Structure formats: structure tokens, C-alpha cells
């Protein structure tokens, strides 16, 4: 699906993650900032990618500022930002959830 607008979800509090999703030209591109990038960077990006795939988002720039969020938090923020970017926030995609 096409991204309709740049969207943001999450905060910069510790144990949270802030994800900004904007239109991209080809593929999914990450800009990841995280204190645990060395240990969990790949894991964080894979988690977000899975969520985006479930929404059929194939082209996007993803700016991520992670503050040590656990996987369920990352998933929740990714779902929220996808819904907002696709302008679907009033129609939750229950299958993804």
C-alpha cells in the first residue's frame, strides 16, 4: 500500500521507541538510533519490517529512535505508525493485530 502521509508514533521515554514513517522510492530504508543497536539493531528492524509487510508497505523511509523498547512495544508502535501513515487510524486492520 502507498503511504499517504508522514506519520509518527511513540515517545523518547526510556523503554519506548519512536518511529517515523515516510514515503520512500524503493524498498524499506532504516535510519536507526539505539543504545542497543549492536546487540538488537537487526532484531528491531526485522520486527518493524514484519509489521510493514503485514500492511503491504513495500516502499518507505523509516526513522527509528529506540530507547531500549522490548519487542511487544516495538510491534505496537510499528502498527500505530503504519495505520497513521496509511490514514487507516479509524479502521484498525484486525488481521494484523
Amino acid at each position: 500500500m502507498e503511504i499517504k502521509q508522514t506519520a509518527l508514533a511513540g515517545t523518547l521515554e526510556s523503554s519506548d521507541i519512536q518511529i517515523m514513517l515516510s514515503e520512500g522510492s524503493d524498498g524499506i530504508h532504516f535510519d536507526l538510533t539505539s543504545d542497543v543497536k549492536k546487540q538488537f539493531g537487526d532484531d528491531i528492524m526485522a520486527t518493524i519490517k514484519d509489521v510493514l509487510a503485514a500492511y503491504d508497505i513495500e516502499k518507505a523511509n523509516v526513522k527509528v529512535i529506540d530507547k531500549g523498547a522490548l519487542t511487544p512495544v516495538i510491534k505496537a508502535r510499528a502498527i500505530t505508525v503504519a495505520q497513521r501513515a496509511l490514514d487507516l487510524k479509524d479502521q484498525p486492520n484486525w488481521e494484523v493485530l
Partner: protein
Amino acid sequence: MKNKVNREIPDSILKDKQYEGFQTTDFGQPDIQRVAPKVTAQTGPSKVVDSIKQVVKETLQDGMTISFHHHFREGDFVFNLVMREIIDAGYKDLTLAPSSLTNVMNDIVVEAIEKGVVTNITSSGMRGSLGDAVSHGALKNPVIFRSHGGRARAIETGKIKIDVAFLGVPNADEMGNANGMNGEAAFGSLGYALMDAQYANKLVLITDSLMPYPNTPASIKQTQVDYVVKVDKVGDPDKIGSGATRFTKDPKELQIARMVNDVIVHSPYFKDGFSFQTGSGGAALAVTRFLRQAMLDNQIKASFALGGITKPTVDLLNEGLVNRVMDVQDFDKGAASSMKNSPAQQEIDASWYADPANKGAMVDKLDVAILSALEIDTNFNVNVMAGSDGVIRGAIGGHQDAATAKLTIISAPLVRGRIATVVPDVTTVITPGDSIDVLVTEIGIAINPKRKDLFEQLKKVPGLPIFTIEELQQKAEKLVGQPKPLEFTDRVVALAEYRDGSLIDVIKEVKD
């Protein structure tokens, strides 16, 4: 070779630097030859000189070992004043041997390394930009990390040979009689600096307040001092110690503190005349408060509290619940300012505090120690030095020394953010699991299998869940996931000594 905590120590380091791998926590009763400083006699009426620049010029040569103390903590002005003169004068190849390095010293040490002024460092620890630079290979020779007791041993035996010690003091007279208790920048105990005062070939005192002669009480004596320099300010009183220590409201820390207290109170050591050491973290301070109530309830008094001292510990002294405070450093203003009024708050030097190579240290008499950890592994080995990304950001402090207590408790959260504290294998071993008895986390405790006696005693305590340490490790991993292993190069950037001088681990350069 692999040492007793299963760490690979490169043979080249063992051979070139004449080290042995760590074997045992038992120091034994070896005969030890101490060294003595060279004394330049003087009988003049005053040792006051005009400037740091002048005294550096008169005392320092390329290749020498210089030392400082860290009692001013983050409020230190002296270190930067002296290092500025040394760098600007263009000295080369110095060994920096302070008792520890605080953040306020980082930038100038990095500059000194880059300019070749400092080529060797030994310290209790380092953090921030300096730890980062060293972990990325900025220093040609590996840093040597030693505990406070280990540094005292190394100074006494000549492994650290201090040519010039630059010691900041909040007061001194013209001959060099000084203490840490009085003056605007007072920090209390001079504990770590007393080693330098006793063993340095040249001793320079730097003070902002010249007192009428003779200045007493004198922790550092005129018999030890070569020069006294007057400067405008030696430190920022607001940053020397934390202000009033607030009691934590963090439910996780409170839960840990409550369980630490349960472990202590139900151990065989909680009886009249027991002794303890707590740290300065939120949970440790909370333990002191719980312990106070338990002591009142059970009509038990402690013979002494040891180590780095905080206001809550001094309060116990004033309340009569602790008989003596044996004080090597003061973490807050309350503790620092009470020393001068209280003979029961005894200043002790680092050797008396924690050195295994003397005729008996305070830690040998210690019943209960509560210590922290960045990481602890399923063999109870503790890391307080390298962060989860492998970068140096900590200090041994008195960890290895106090861990020889009869009951050593590690208090630590199961996870911090997405980083597990309880891990299969710590990044760097600093304190061997052999000296750790109990781990307390917010979800429960784990007892070292060696201590079956403690298990029998603690298993009956209500509200104190006991797990194996493997179970705690698995619970942590389930929460945060499995991290990707850290990558290091083969280059050794730091050596971690055990308190007896053997090598317990090496720290390698991080790969980015």
C-alpha cells in the same frame, strides 16, 4: 592460558608484563617486601610556591609516574589545572596513576593521550569519552585497572612507583599539614590520597585555603609534603558530593532493597556486633533504611559500617545503631561534613580499608557487603567495568575487596531497559563468582550453590522467592530476547587485576 574464571589471558601479556592468571580468592600469608619513597630533606620555613607551572617544572621529567586522587569527584578543579600545565609544557610518555578518574577529567586525559603526554594509565576505572577512546584503542599500552585495595598493594610493593603526586586539599598550612574535612571544598575522608602521601617521591599539595600553622587535624603531614601551591579554587562544592540523598520511590528498587534486607536479617550474620558495607545506589540507600528498622525491632547494633559513606549511614551512627563508621571516602555532603565533629567516624586509608597485602584490612572483618553489578553470570561472576556494548564505563572501586565479606549480596535489577543484567557469561569478569553469595533481583533471589547453609536458612522466609541463577538468566532472556554477540578485535586495551595482583580478565578493543 585460561585462568580460574575461564578467561583466556594471552600468553604474551602474562610473559611480557610478568603476570599470573587469577587462581583463587584466598590471598594466603605470603611475606611481602615493601618499598619506601625517596625523601629530599628540607628545613625551610615554608613550602609555598607561586604556581603549578613552577612546581611542575621543578619536579617532573618525561617518562615519570604522576598521581591524583578522586575525592573531589565531579567537582574536581585540581586535575585539570595540573594536567593543563603538564600538557602545555610538552612533557612526554608519562604514566597516569590516579586513584580513579571521574567524568570531569575525561577531556583533558583524552587530549594528553592524543599528544603523547600520557602513554600509560592505571586507575580504578573510567567512563564517558575516555572509556570510549580507550575501548577504541586510543592508548598504545593497555590500561591497568585495580581495585582500591589492589592499588594500595601495588603502591606498597612498588608496582606503582609514584614520582610526583599532585593532591588537592580543601585546607593546608605553609608546611603541608592538611585534611579533607574543613574548608569550602571539604570532601571528608582523604582515604585514597593517603597512600600517595605516604609513598610518592615528591608530594605537591594544591589548596585554596592556607591555614595558620600548624593546621590540625593533619591527615597528610608536613613530613610527607614537598610543595604547597595556593590556587583560587580546588573544587566546586556543589559537585563534590551529591546533595541530600533522596530516598528512592522506584518500586523496583524498593522491592530489591526489601529482599536484600530479608536476606541479611535471616542470615546467621545478623546479630549484635555485626558489620556491613553498602554502596551509594538507590537500592543500597533504601537497604540502609530497612536495616535500621530491623535493627531497632531486634535490638541489634552494628560494630562498624565500612567503605564509601553516605548520610543515612552517619545517621545510624548518631542514633547509636552503629558503633563506628570506618570511612575511606564520603559520597555526599552529609557524610563529608560530619567527620570533623565525630571521633567515631574514623578516616581510614585504602590499605587499612581493603588491601590484602598487609597485616589485616577492615574488609577481612566484614560480615555483610551489598554490592551492585552491570552484569552477573550463571557462575556468579560480576562485571562492573564494561558496558553491554563492550565499552569501558565503570570502576572496580572496592568491589573485589568488599566481596570477600562473609555474606556478599549483589543487588541488581533483572534487566535494565533491553539489557539483561543476569547473563550466561559476563562481558568482563571483575569479581569472581567464588566471592559472591547471593544475587537479589526484583523478582527473587539466587543463592550461590556453594552456600547450601544459606539456602537452608533462607528457604523458609516468606515472600522471598528463590530461583537458581540459571532460571533468573532465562527469565531475563525471555523478556529482552537474545542479543547478538559483541565483536572485538584481538588487541588488548585494558587489563583487569584481581586484588592480589593476578589477572582476572583482559578487555579488548571494540569493533564498530
